[in-house]
């Protein structure tokens, strides 16, 4: 067997690929589900925190800033491991999927709050004052005047951050979630062949290359002309 044959046999083995394809496809389903759950919860919570912060209650704001800093400073894998292995100590047992979901949602919420907040503060004070003096309430001013202007500023950084955190779903394999990487790793240990890893890489590329390209497009689309 030549070196090239051995390489192809180990990384692009059709028999093994056919055998494990269903498992990897199931893994893709889990990855997509986890990613969507994280994006929805994380962005909603981030926006909610930014709205709370805009109300300007000092003690509340300190609490929000601390939570945001906390989840920006902690590595995602550390948060996942802490939730998964730590919570049972106080009799709360989350399975791997929900532990990863909670950890990644908290992290995305922290980053999203920071980005939304930066966008909100970049809207000139005069917009608030004009709107309030026209008789609009706080919430109406916030949602109809300030937020639409802020969103435009924050789309590119928010998209990039969301993509980065969505890729963190692969970390769920550490707490035994059978998403793409987890499925591939167990397939490798059963088949003694690296083909499932090649399939996992291909599966991630199929999911994320369109997302990365879309992110690039959005970045140019929303860029402020200098």
């Amino acid at each position, binding site marked *: 067997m030549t*070196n090239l044959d*051995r*390489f192809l046999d*180990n*990384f692009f083995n059709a028999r093994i690929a056919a055998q494990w394809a269903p498992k990897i496809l199931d893994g893709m389903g889990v990855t997509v589900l986890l990613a969507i759950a994280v994006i929805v919860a994380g962005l909603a919570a981030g926006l909610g925190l930014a709205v709370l912060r805009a109300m300007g209650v000092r003690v509340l704001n300190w609490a929000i800033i601390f939570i945001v*800093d*906390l989840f*920006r*400073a*902690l*590595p*995602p*894998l*550390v*948060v996942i*491991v*802490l939730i998964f*292995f*730590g919570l049972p*100590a*106080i*009799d709360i047992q989350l399975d791997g999927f929900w532990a990863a979901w909670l950890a990644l949602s908290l992290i995305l919420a922290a980053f999203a709050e*920071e980005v939304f907040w*930066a*966008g909100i*503060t*970049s809207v*000139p004070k005069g917009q608030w004052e004009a709107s309030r003096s026209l008789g609009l309430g706080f919430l109406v001013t916030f949602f109809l005047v300030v937020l639409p202007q802020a969103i435009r*500023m*924050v789309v590119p950084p928010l998209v990039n951050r969301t993509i*980065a955190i969505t*890729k*963190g*779903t*692969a*970390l769920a*394999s*550490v707490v035994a979630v059978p998403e*793409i*990487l987890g499925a591939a*790793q167990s397939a*490798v240990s059963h088949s003694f*062949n*690296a083909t499932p*890893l*090649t399939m*996992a*890489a291909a599966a*991630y*590329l199929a999911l*994320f*290359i369109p*997302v*990365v*390209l879309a992110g690039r497009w959005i970045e140019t689309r929303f860029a*402020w002309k200098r």
Partner: protein
Amino acid sequence: MQDFIDGFFSLEILREASPILIQGLLQTLLLSAMVVPIGIAGGIILGIASTIRNPWLRLPIAAWVDLFRALPPLVLLVFVYAGLPFAGLEVNAWQAVAIGFFLNTGAYYGEIIRAGIESVPAGQAEAARALGLSRYHTMRLVVLPQAIRNVLPDLVSNTLEVVKLTSIASVVALPELLFQARQAQSVTYNATPIMAAAVAYFILLWPLVRVLSRLENKQMAGKR
């Protein structure tokens, strides 16, 4: 409440685990000191290369950058560590991490540096060339310093992410902070070591997060 304190903040267990946690922390620092320069070096090369006008060079480089930005870092690391032995290349955990981080963080830094270089007006490079500076000196002395200043918040932000990302080295059994904390946790059946690791990461990285938050707010306000 007592369960919570015993489960997460047991002083006794902290005392027992602290020697290996400190070892882990030192490994994490060492690892960061290795992968950040590797990533920046790769990023400068990719960043400069992606501003070359020749499409035969630029397109493969853009494809390379997108490829390694699309793959989750952990997938890349597992591929290198568990996959390369099948190709007859035995790599240890440190080598696997070095290769994985070079590919992944190099691509991220490259994208940031490319944006920085493109933000420097073309007149700067033209003026430098007209004054007789070589291409190399124009890039190193005129364009790069301005480029890096323009994207400083993104560079700091990415460096923070890279330091946090070193925690995935625990998956390939490199004895850094998270790995040691999980070892201690599995021996003691207690979450205190992981809590201690989280606190250590927070103390280490909080100042960077504060600085970054300021830089970002300034940048967003400046765009208006």
